[in-house]
């Protein structure tokens, strides 16, 4: 039987603390894209990003006991990644003259300002916090439908989550409605109305 609500994350983190490889893979699937995305936005190459990934993962393994919720993990990962990227540039000694001498040849793929990046990461933390309130089955279904770049077919999802193909459609809508209601009740409200471009009604 699937785990309910925050139980899934508590159990995942518990298994990671015990050193279970499969649980670590699941956790890495959650935080890996955040690390690589921050590296890409900081104009690091793929090798350099993988180096940062290794350093952040090492610190995550060492600190997992004190990080007991998904939002704390995401916040920790984002902070450590930014610190490691800063150290990387500092070791190259280009931080001091970053502004004036940044080579033109390095492509800027992000086009996002630091405040925008910060806001996106914060919003993600809130979203993951809300997602962690879903049951294990609901969380995994949502992850596969939205976040898996392979775009698995209903048949693949059905095999992996052991649910009939015919129930995926109705369930996905219910999960999104559930997620929406959690976000409505929780902190999301703060983030919505903190944005000056949004008008309160």
């Amino acid at each position, binding site marked *: 039987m699937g785990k309910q609500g925050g139980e899934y994350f508590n159990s995942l983190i518990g298994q990671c603390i015990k*050193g279970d*490889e499969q649980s*670590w*893979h699941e956790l*890495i*699937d959650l935080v*890996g*894209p955040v690390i*690589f*995305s921050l590296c*890409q936005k900081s104009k690091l190459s*793929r*090798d350099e990003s*993988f*180096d940062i*990934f*290794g*350093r952040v*993962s*090492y610190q995550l*393994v*060492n600190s997992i006991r004190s990080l007991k919720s998904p939002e704390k993990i995401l916040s920790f990962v984002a902070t450590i990644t930014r610190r490691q990227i800063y150290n990387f540039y500092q070791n190259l000694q280009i931080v001091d003259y970053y502004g004036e001498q940044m080579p033109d040849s390095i492509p800027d*793929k992000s086009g996002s300002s630091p405040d925008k990046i910060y806001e*996106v990461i914060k*919003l*993600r933390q809130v*979203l993951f916090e809300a997602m962690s309130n879903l049951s294990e089955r609901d969380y995994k279904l949502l992850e596969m*439908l*939205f*976040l*898996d*770049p*392979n775009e698995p077919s209903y048949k693949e999802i059905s095999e992996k989550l052991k649910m009939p193909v015919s129930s995926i*459609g*109705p369930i*996905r*809508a*219910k999960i*999104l*409605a559930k*997620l*929406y209601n959690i*976000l*409505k009740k929780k902190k*999301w*409200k703060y*983030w*919505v*109305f903190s944005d000056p471009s*949004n008008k309160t009604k």
Partner: protein
Amino acid sequence: MNDKTKQFDKLIDFIKGRLTPEEQSSLKEQIENDPILQKMIAVIKDMNNEADQIEWQKLKKPSHNLIDRLLKDIKKRKSAGNDKWGINIFDSGLLPLPEGVRPAEVDTRRLKFLVGDGQLELSIYPISPKSFELIGQISGLKQDEAISIELKSGKSLIKSETNQFNLFRISRVPAGKYNLNLLKGRKIAGKIDLEL
């Protein structure tokens, strides 16, 4: 399925851009009137695009392999009861080649290990199908005395010394599994497992 649930059912297709232009614009209108839904979709869409952009699918397996090694090294360090056991935090050999680049026998592999408060970086150059040149540099370790290198595999032992820049070079190492020890005098200052 009630109306509200139907609306949510269309969200996935909206995010993936699979709706007809009419459906897309009708749903867009509804979303624009709901700030919570608007942000929820924006974040999910952003994460969805980003996973494509950073090619997470290609990085997923190397990331899993690296975390497996890291966990093994940390376990070894714990059972050794000290921080001299090196933790492998980078191996270029785990990464897939960039698109359009063919694998070659002459590909160089770079590795990084955290050893105590320091770091050991290795570059491994193939000089024949079954032997390699090994160049390494140690940084961050307390420099009270010179560090020497010991490469052990069964009965075979290869030794090398670091220079003033803490660099060392071993010109030919046969393929195999090794224990690499960093020595300060006769004391072990760091150790790693190495497979060439």
